[in-house]
């Protein structure tokens, strides 16, 4: 089936070349970082994780979001998702590829990455994250490929594959739970030390993943003549609305606990993220506009998605709402959650983090790589569907 990626309209090649350009910039930036060290990033002794780990965290959610298609389709035999489920599985593959690249970009000694395998350390959450991420990547490649191959041959998929399909469901939940545990098990980081982090991550993931899938489905309908079906999209939008509302609800609970208990440790980071934190006469607030934009994006897009005229009648506005929701969730988890956790530092000092151009170049390059992989995978999936129809 791989040969299908080698034939396409000019627009396909232009899109790949466009992504390839960013990938090349990313490689060039990474070579610079590799030769100099992570000092080329905006990270510091106080904010020791930055854009790379925050993107990783967000993208684990995008990958896990695919389960919102797999679960109804395979467990509840929800036939409407027949054409769209493969999109979720392939999105998970591309998202995990990005996750792994972001982890590699973040390592100070990338050539020693295999030490995690050579010296397995079961008390480290990173050890389990490595297992579940690679496991989920493998499961999605296996299931996606076997089922698509069967579809192409117009036969039923082999029975054994369903074992792996069902296995991929707890794996999807586990990748984001374990990723949340990287943060919520650390003593002394009050913003992260909250049992609601894992459920909040899952809620935001089950909104962000489907939002991207709906957006891509609407694009595929126009550029690739691939219609996932109105009913499928409509159902996904419902899932997105509830998940995004749950995420907002969880954020609200964090605010309640922090501000009603009035315990400084529980509210300082929220104060920093949303209002600015005063320290020695200076107010630190460089994330405040982002966080409010995130809240406005999430609330606004939920309102748009819940409007029947937009949801069922206007594909452009529906796509826009998905994009806004995705962006809002991205700011919430892909920026604020990780950066905010380091403010204030364990000695109650404040250092703000601003990514450098080189760091942004690498991050863009990895996102482009993810979309490059996604394009190739979707090209295969769409062509197989077209082949069956003819």
């Amino acid at each position, binding site marked *: 089936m791989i040969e299908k990626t080698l034939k396409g309209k000019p627009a396909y090649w232009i899109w790949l070349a466009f992504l390839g350009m960013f990938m090349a910039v990313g490689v060039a930036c990474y070579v610079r970082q590799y030769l100099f060290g992570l000092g080329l990033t905006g990270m510091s002794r106080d904010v*020791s994780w930055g854009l790379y780990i925050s993107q990783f965290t967000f993208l684990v959610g995008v990958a896990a979001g695919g389960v919102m298609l797999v679960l109804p389709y395979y467990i509840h035999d929800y036939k409407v998702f027949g054409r769209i489920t493969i999109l979720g599985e392939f999105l998970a593959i591309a998202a995990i590829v990005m996750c792994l690249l972001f982890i590699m970009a973040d390592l100070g000694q990338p050539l020693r990455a295999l030490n995690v395998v050579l010296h397995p350390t079961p008390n480290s959450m990173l050890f389990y994250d490595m297992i579940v991420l690679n496991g989920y990547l493998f499961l999605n490649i296996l299931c996606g490929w076997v089922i698509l191959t069967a579809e192409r041959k117009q036969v039923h998929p082999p029975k054994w594959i369903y074992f792996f399909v069902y296995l991929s469901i707890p794996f999807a939940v586990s990748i984001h739970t374990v990723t949340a545990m990287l943060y919520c098990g650390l003593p002394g980081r009050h913003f992260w030390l909250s049992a609601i982090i894992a459920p909040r991550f899952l809620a935001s993931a089950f909104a962000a993943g489907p939002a991207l899938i709906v957006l891509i489905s609407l694009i595929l309908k126009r550029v690739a003549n691939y219609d996932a079906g109105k009913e499928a999209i409509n159902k996904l939008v419902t899932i997105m609305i509830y998940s995004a509302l749950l995420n907002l609800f969880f954020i609200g609970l964090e605010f309640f606990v922090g501000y009603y208990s009035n315990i400084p440790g529980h509210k300082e980071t929220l104060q920093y993220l949303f209002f600015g934190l005063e320290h020695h006469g200076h107010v630190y607030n460089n994330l405040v506009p982002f966080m409010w934009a995130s809240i406005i994006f999430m609330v606004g897009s939920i309102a748009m998605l819940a409007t029947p005229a937009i949801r069922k009648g206007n594909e452009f506005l529906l796509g826009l709402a998905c994009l806004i929701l995705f962006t809002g969730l991205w700011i919430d988890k892909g920026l604020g959650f990780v950066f905010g956790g380091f403010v204030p530092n364990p000695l109650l000092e404040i250092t703000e983090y601003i990514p450098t151009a080189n760091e942004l170049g690498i991050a863009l390059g990895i996102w482009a790589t993810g979309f490059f992989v996604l394009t190739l995978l979707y090209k295969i999936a769409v062509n197989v569907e077209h082949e069956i129809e003819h």
Partner: protein
Amino acid sequence: MDKQRRKFLKIAGASALAGIGAPALVKLTAGSAYASTHGAAPAHGAAPATGHAEAAPTGVRLGMVIDMRVIADHPALLDKAISSCTEAHNIPDFAGDRKNEIKWIWKAPFGSVFTEHSTSHLPKMVQDTDFAVLCNHCDDPPCVRACPTKATFKVKANGIVAMDFHRCIGCRFCMAACPYGARSFNWQDPRPYVKKYNPDFPTRMRGVVEKCNFCGERLALGKEPACVEACKGTGAIVFGDLNDPQSEIRQILDREFTIQRKPSLGTKPSVFYIV
């Protein structure tokens, strides 16, 4: 006094040797660390490793008492301790650049060091004095729990939380996990910034984490930690085995009221402060 000091050095030296040399040696029981008579010579001193024997609860646990009353009277002592640590460990000097700075032992105000304590109506001495901050060598270290490669580990023979700079992959999970801000990362090659090179301790490469090691390498040679030596004779910093009721440090702890940083987190720090 002199006899006591000799005994301390033997214990510290032997236990450090057991721990710092190689992971295989770490398995030495505390008992063999005690039994050794020649701290500086492993071949004669430390008994061979006896398999996977569980370290006795009475094993050596090295700790430190910092008497802030002495440091308040002689603030230059802390500067001396910091600079001797810097020289002993080839710590680079980035001239106050907060982003890159590498800190093993440094100065911070009371409110930053003891974030769980009230800062209202502090006596003038506490307000005006810079406190010494360093790795707490916790009995239950969160950094060791977080490390995915065992590059940071607790030395069983003496309780030191040590680092293997050659195994560290630079994921910085330990920096997020440490509730005391004790860990630094080499964001770039530190070697050009080392002012005075000490050939007895390795310099680091970029991309690895480092922190105070309670001078494991000096203990192995029968010496005291650099900061302790710098304050010799003043009682500002006392170092020794917290589990030995006869040790100088225990006698001070039994006599004086001391505090630890963030005790509510359950990490059981081995660094105590007299304020």
